[in-house]
């Protein structure tokens, strides 16, 4: 079901949440190109919601640095800034291993079962799969790990940063040779978390974040 199929009268707040998720995904996957103007009215019509929830969603996206508003000129998707790569990596190298270790230590039985199923499905990713689809699954794995960390603040920061990292991925998707490999690395990580092995989870995560940065740098 797409957003347009949802009933309109479910309240501004819920519509704002959904508008946020949909617009965010378009920005992260570069379906809305960097620098492209954001048109409230058109988005509202397209998503089948009012302009108020869309405006609220756009404000949240501004806090995420995915859009930028200029008085009298309008709102635009931010540029994908490659100088950000080092800055974002500096934070992720600290927080991603912390989240993975915490997930390994504290995840509930239910969360572990979800991560285990995810590991099985990720293992089946094929080199020939659509890279954008592979990337979406990568985002999904990250999000599940953040959630399993049980720290909502950590989860929120990492979702934001992963969004920026994913935009960089998307920019280079044609030139990054081994996206499927990169995402399959998560199988071992997920298994370490499920097994409660904090050290392995942290180490594998650090290697993953560092590997991403190195892969992009190699193209520059």
């Amino acid at each position, binding site marked *: 079901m797409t957003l347009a199929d949802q009933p309109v009268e479910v309240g*501004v707040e819920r519509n704002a949440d959904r508008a946020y998720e949909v617009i965010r995904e378009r920005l992260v996957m570069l379906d809305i190109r960097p*620098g492209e103007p954001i048109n409230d009215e058109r988005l509202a019509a397209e998503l089948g919601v009012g302009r108020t929830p869309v405006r609220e969603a756009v*404000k949240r996206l501004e806090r995420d640095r995915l859009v930028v508003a200029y008085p009298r000129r309008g709102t*635009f998707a931010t540029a994908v800034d490659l*100088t950000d790569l080092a*800055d974002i990596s*500096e934070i992720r190298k600290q927080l991603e291993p*912390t989240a993975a270790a915490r997930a390994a230590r504290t995840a509930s039985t239910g969360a572990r079962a979800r991560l285990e199923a995810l590991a099985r499905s990720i293992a089946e990713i094929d080199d020939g799969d659509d890279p954008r689809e592979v990337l979406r699954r990568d985002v999904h794995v990250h999000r599940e790990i953040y959630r399993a960390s049980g720290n909502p*603040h950590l989860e929120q920061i990492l979702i934001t*940063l992963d969004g920026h990292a994913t935009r960089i991925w998307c920019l280079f998707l044609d030139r990054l040779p081994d996206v499927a490999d990169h995402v399959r690395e998560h199988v071992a990580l997920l298994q370490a978390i499920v097994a409660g092995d904090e050290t392995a989870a942290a180490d594998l995560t650090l290697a993953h974040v560092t590997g991403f940065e190195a892969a992009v740098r190699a193209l520059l």
Partner: protein
Amino acid sequence: MHDVVVGRIVTVSIPGLDELEADPEGMSFADRAYLAIRDKLIMLDIRPGEAIVESELSAELQFGRTPVREALKRLEADRLVVSYPRRGTFATGVDVADLRHISQIRVNLEPVAARTAADVASAATREHLARLADDVHGLDAVAVDRTELMRWDHKVHRAIYRAAGNPHLEDVLVRYYNLATRIYCLFLDRLPSVADHVEEHTNLLRAIAAGDADTAAAVTLEHVTGFEKSVRAIV
């Protein structure tokens, strides 16, 4: 037209405000409104979750509506207020139960900021931090009131975040500094001396200014951990 610098403008706070603070004459009305409202939010004179009415604030603080509105926009970037279209602006919530989660983030990132600042800060920034260290060291803790001490604490932390030169890191740290400090203020009456906490900054600032990254990181870790311990001892 929308070149690579576009993304950097959004949430980076007010360049030069730290310098302006030393010289209130040079501050715009919006700068002054920002500081006044920020103090109220951090010191919890405006309670978490409380509705913020522009006209009331502007009457109370004797500023026009426009500087107050501009100040609120900056405070929203600091995550101290949140505004919803058609519903209004509110002080963001403070949840003591979050302290553990917040500390986990700060324990990880504060030392990174101090270390990076020690490694990368420009000569001018180092000079600024060294001067700040002298100012903090010279404070007469008995004569200076709590609001003033919190302002110094704030100033030191933000100067370090800025000096690290990573706007994403700065953004996260400002946000969590604000949250942590508001939790601190919930218990201010019962906490041991705030002055000692602020004085700890002298060594930290001097380590950064001297480029001693290991000391800067170690002192910061101790500072953040000590802060959490003192609050937890009371909660």
